[in-house]
């Protein structure tokens, strides 16, 4: 794969497994993804497709049962998987930060929010307590929280969900990280708050030229906020490309179905198509090379051959798919022209 020269995060052929009582779950396999500085990339897919597993692995906070069996993760040229615990912890929260869904339960319920920001500052900076407090209040102001001095002493239960998410963003951005991973940051918030939070994330990312990985199952949101989009299915990245190209001419059948299943893409509810079948059981030993094959209307004999991401025919070099029988650009463009 050709990488842009200013690559910040690079996930290279990563494989992650979970050993469970019921068998080994092959949660990620051969996953490659790169983020350049200042770029916002969307990671989309159904629940259970491995989006969070990927982001947790990148942050080094994966579950104890998770094992990285192959591949590499590089951040600003450093091999993250080779880093010892302490070195990795020093990176987390300072260079790379993460915000989560359901902000109300993602904050310590019995600690003042300002103190929670200070905890991060105390860990990663040499600020003295008084300066830490001032900086924490500044962080609250940066995420547009009104009256930050007073809100410093608030507990999460005293704040709305949107406010809690702002606090979480303040915690994540307190040390001015170069990479922000936002794991469904608007899940659990009401619609107007969702938009406000996403605008805030976009503004702050632009201001600081911060790379942002937005994990979401909301294609409309990904389309609105992301430069590029990666589509995940059952632990594989099946398609990755510039947002507009991907929406205008999805080449992987799964992406095509996903877009058709989203209100943004379909003209009417009648045209909203559900995706047949479910994600395959990732504990199976006989998982096909293409994990979408069993749900795919276009599958053929060649679909059992090994598969890797490669530039799609007739698309730009940055538009990659993992499919033996992709849709042709012309066909999908014609269909989607109707909704454009």
């Amino acid at each position, binding site marked *: 794969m050709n990488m842009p020269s200013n690559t910040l995060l690079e996930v290279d052929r990563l494989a992650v497994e979970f050993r469970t009582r019921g068998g080994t779950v092959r949660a990620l396999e051969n996953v490659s993804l790169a983020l350049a500085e200042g770029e916002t990339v969307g990671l989309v897919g159904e629940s259970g497709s491995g989006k969070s597993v990927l982001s947790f692995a990148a942050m080094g*906070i994966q579950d104890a049962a998770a094992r990285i069996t192959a591949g590499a993760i590089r951040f600003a040229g450093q091999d993250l998987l080779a880093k010892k615990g302490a070195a990795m912890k020093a990176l987390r*929260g300072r260079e790379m930060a993460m915000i989560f869904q359901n902000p109300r339960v993602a*904050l*310590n*319920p019995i600690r003042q929010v300002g103190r929670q920001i200070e905890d*991060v500052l105390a*860990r990663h900076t040499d600020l003295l307590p008084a300066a830490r407090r001032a900086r924490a209040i500044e962080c609250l102001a940066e995420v547009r929280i009104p009256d930050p001095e007073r809100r410093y002493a608030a507990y999460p239960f005293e704040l709305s969900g949107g406010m809690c998410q702002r606090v979480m963003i303040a*915690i*994540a951005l307190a040390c001015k990280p170069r990479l922000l991973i936002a794991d469904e940051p608007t899940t659990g918030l009401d619609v107007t708050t969702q938009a406000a939070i996403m605008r805030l994330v976009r503004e702050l990312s632009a201001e600081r030229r911060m790379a942002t990985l937005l994990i979401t199952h909301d294609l409309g949101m990904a389309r609105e906020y992301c430069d590029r989009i990666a589509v995940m299915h059952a632990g594989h990245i099946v398609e990755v490309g510039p947002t507009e190209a991907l929406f205008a001419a999805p080449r992987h059948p799964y992406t095509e179905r996903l877009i058709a299943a989203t209100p943004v893409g379909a003209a009417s509810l009648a045209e909203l198509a559900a995706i047949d079948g479910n994600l395959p059981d990732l504990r199976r030993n006989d998982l096909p090379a293409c994990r979408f094959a069993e749900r795919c209307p276009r599958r053929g004999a060649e679909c059992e051959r090994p598969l890797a991401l490669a530039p799609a025919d007739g698309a730009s070099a940055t538009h990659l798919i993992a499919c033996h029988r992709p849709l042709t650009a012309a066909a999908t463009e014609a269909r989607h022209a109707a909704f454009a």
Partner: protein
Amino acid sequence: MIQAILKRLLGAVPAIIGVVIVTFVLTRALPGDPAAYFAGPAGSTEAIEEIRVKLGLDRSLPEQFVSYVGDLVRGDWGNSLTTGQPVLAEIADRLPASLELTLVGLLLAVVVAIPLGVLAATRPGSWIDHLCRGITTAGVSLPTFFTGLLLAYVFYFLLGWAPSPLGRLDPYTTAPDFVTGFYLIDSLIAGELDTFVSAAKQLILPAITLALFVLAPLARMTRASMLGVLSADFIRTARASGLRPTTVLFTYAFRNALLPVLTTLGMVFSFLLGSNVLVEKVFAWPGIGSFAIEALVASDYAPVQGFVLAMALLYVLLNLLIDVAYGLVDPRARLEA
């Protein structure tokens, strides 16, 4: 904060009323006719009638209740037939001994149980987790009076490490001047180190006996609560922020895990105060428990009723303290109060 505490105090009022009603009912349910009982086996019919009037037993139950409550408030909890002393004075005299034993027992249990529970929760499946499991299941199965005897046999009779299990001090030591009634503290205040050592030696076996019994619920709750908290979303946030493991464990996980443990402490106190009676009997500990047992054996009921009431009030008070402590740890509880 003061306001919150006052509100909690008010919240304890129904419990106190309930306790007083129950003890009243228990007093009136004395076996046979209390008047005949107080008149003694030789009492004539007139004498019994006289006592009946004197005790107010001829009046209606509500009237009797009012005068009962009046007596309680005035500090008249009746007299012990065996010692002839007012019950309240006897209880006040012996309470420090019981409290000292109970609190040291609780302290020992907490000091062992909480780290054990935390370690078990942070290393699930490890030997310490299995140890914790074993202790929690075995611990609740121990009859306190039996463990007490066993400890006395091993450490006094076999090994000779502990003094003879009789009372709070060995016979050659005199009690320190009364300040708090806790010998450990009073002896230090008086600067009598020998007395302190003697008191500590006497205290250690009964305190361990108590601790062994309440260790189990505490460790079990700490482990369960810690396991729950460690998988909470905010712990993941803390880890994603790169906070040090110790910060995550103590500032984030442990303080949150403490809340259910505090709630359990109410139940633990119930067990402690109950087992205290048994342990006092085993170690001839001169507290209110052995006082009540002596009275029970002598069919002397006023001290028994006084003991039940005192224990219940003490328990209500302890629960109140737990509530206040809970409010200190959990800001949400402060708001509700």
